[in-house]
């Protein structure tokens, strides 16, 4: 293999790459997926009760409510508009505080307090807001509860927040789109448009072309993986080990991409194969989301051996020493794929019928 020729093909692919929408796709999609996943899953499963407050006097309740963690508070001035927002379920409940409310409570009176509840709010949400409202009013009255609450958190060592469980999903997309799609579709496209024939007329041989495609895919996959991890603040305590598994993962998916790219006769066949086999390589990302299901199933997917270490390092604070098994299997897969890529490359070269 001539490394200079490999370099020339890499430079050619990098020069022509920006013209392909796939490169844009590989760069934009992981970022978009990270943002969508964070926005949709982050807020969908972590919705807080929403309380709207109209203070017709000068009560201390709105300020105290706004300082609370776990409740989203908005204030306005128009009781009718608040009622409208409650009815449309823009807030779960509304509180209309009359003028002189705080003074009346401090004087031991039981003043009226309008508490509006949206018909669509959950019973549990109503309970939270009602109990919190009582607490806030008691605070205004100046009464300290004759009790001290001592909080004990149970099971913190095994708990991984949802946001962290999404790390394999976002890293998967970043690495797979750039590392697998890019070399695979580039190979198929070059064969379909016969530009591969033109390259093979030169002294360049198939192994050099495949190496060049792999270098471009691995580089982009690694960069996109690093960006995704940075966006998710998921480098963990051992960034060196994280980068190692990311690069190994990029190499693994690039090898899969090269095998697919050499095998598929056209773009449609390639995408049908990816669509059909996608669930298999996607398994580890899916299983990380649901810790309750048997995790051993994910081990049948080759991608497990780089995604799981990335998850363990980034979300569970694992040490590099505890990941030797995964590293060994990952290296074995990467090594075993090399002859497969070479064999598929030879087959593709023969199919092109331009063999010197």
């Amino acid at each position, binding site marked *: 293999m001539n490394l200079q020729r490999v370099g020339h093909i890499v430079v050619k692919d990098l020069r022509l790459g920006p013209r392909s929408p796939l490169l844009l796709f590989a760069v934009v999609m992981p970022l978009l997926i990270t943002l969508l996943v964070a926005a949709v899953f982050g807020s969908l499963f972590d919705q807080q009760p929403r309380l709207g407050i109209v203070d017709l006097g000068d009560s201390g309740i709105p300020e105290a409510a706004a300082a609370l963690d776990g409740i989203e508070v908005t204030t306005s001035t128009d009781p009718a508009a608040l009622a409208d927002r409650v009815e449309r379920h823009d807030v779960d409940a509304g509180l209309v505080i009359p003028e002189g409310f705080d003074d009346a409570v401090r004087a031991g009176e039981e003043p009226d307090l309008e508490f*509006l509840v949206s018909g669509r709010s959950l019973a549990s949400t109503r309970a939270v807001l009602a109990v919190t409202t009582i*607490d806030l009013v008691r605070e205004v009255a100046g009464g300290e509860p*004759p009790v001290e609450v001592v909080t004990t958190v149970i099971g913190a060592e095994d708990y991984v927040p949802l946001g962290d469980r999404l790390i394999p999903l976002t890293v998967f997309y970043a690495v797979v789109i750039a590392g697998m799609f890019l070399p695979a579709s580039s190979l198929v496209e070059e064969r379909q448009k016969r530009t591969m024939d033109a390259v093979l007329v030169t002294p360049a041989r198939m192994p050099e072309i495949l190496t060049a495609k792999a270098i471009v895919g691995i580089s982009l996959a690694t960069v996109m993986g690093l960006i995704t991890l940075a966006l998710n603040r998921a480098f963990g305590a051992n960034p060196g080990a994280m980068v190692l598994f990311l690069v190994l993962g990029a190499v693994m998916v690039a090898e899969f991409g090269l095998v697919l790219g050499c095998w598929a006769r056209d773009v449609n066949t390639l995408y049908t194969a990816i669509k059909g086999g996608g669930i298999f390589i996607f398994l580890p990302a899916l299983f990380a989301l649901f810790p309750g299901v048997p995790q051993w199933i994910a081990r049948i997917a080759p991608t497990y051996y780089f995604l799981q270490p990335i998850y363990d390092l980034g979300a569970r604070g694992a040490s590099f020493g505890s990941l030797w098994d995964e590293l060994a299997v990952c290296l074995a897969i990467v090594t075993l794929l090399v002859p497969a890529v070479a064999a598929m490359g030879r087959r593709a070269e023969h199919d092109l019928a331009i063999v010197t």
Partner: protein
Amino acid sequence: MRGPIVAAIVRKDARAFTRDRFFFFITILALVAYAVVYFFIPSNVDETVTVGVHQTGLDELIRGVAAASRGLAVAEYDSSADLEDAVTRGADGVVAGLDFPTDFAETVAAGERARVRLLLPAGVSEDDRLLLEGIVGEVAFAVAGVPPPVDPITDAVVLGTDRVGDQMSLQDQMRPMLLFFVLMVETFALASLVSIEIQERTVTAVLATPARIGDVLAAKGIFGTGLAFVEVLFLALVIGALAPNLPLMLVALLLGSILVTGFGMIAGSFGRDFMEVLFISFAFMIPLAIPAMAALFPGTAPLWVRLIPSFGLVDVIGGVTTDGESWREVSGALASLAAWSTAAFVAGSMILKRRVSTL
């Protein structure tokens, strides 16, 4: 535009579609996957926070607190160890535990501060923590004989239809999204078919026959709309989306099919190969999916979301299937959907016509 010619072109497109393994596979896979996903999504809503309690001599008070609110349930345990075990395992649906000391009532009655253990599993939400701390405080105040100055639980005014016990499940919320996603896949399918015809110049071959460009456009519109409509109708039937108001849903889904056909024609006209079609289709699909995503969140969608062409479709499907809204109630959303569908279809036809005439 002549019927027999248009029908012949539609038949040709249908054959091309079923012959294309990729799109045929995707289409079937998507329909099956969406139906399976739908039936895996939870169909009920747990509105209750279940709290484990270990206490002595507070039975009446604890039951009173639970009875006052429909959103709270109490599971009692004989010992602190049992309670801790239940919270750790999440047994009986317990989300947290309150461990009152045996001398709680005496301590508080004597005017002293009692200590109550609040057992929280890692990851419990801040609002649940607020609720539990509030309950402990109210139990202590009740023992001390200090009633709350206000009673927002019994004095609450419920605005709108009270849906406690009949809340919209995640399955209900996902219905518009799944139906819309089926239509979106069709944007891609039609775009690719149009693109292939342009690239392979089969459209010019068709125009060499007595068929005119108007016939081709009509055929593409009918085929795209028909394909999308049949698929979305099938899924709507499977997931029970047609039952609340069949005629209204048929009109909404037909308009939705016309909308995505318009975008499919635009994407197909611009895309020069598979990757470009994929990219342009995604450029349309992502913004169009926003209203379907927004429907998962409570409350009114912001103005910018309401201005997205697909909002009317999502709004009508959501309104009809979950709230049983009538023609009159969804008329605004339906009018907006009709306007966007017409605009997208006209724009798609014009762009495709222009593209074909340049060949």
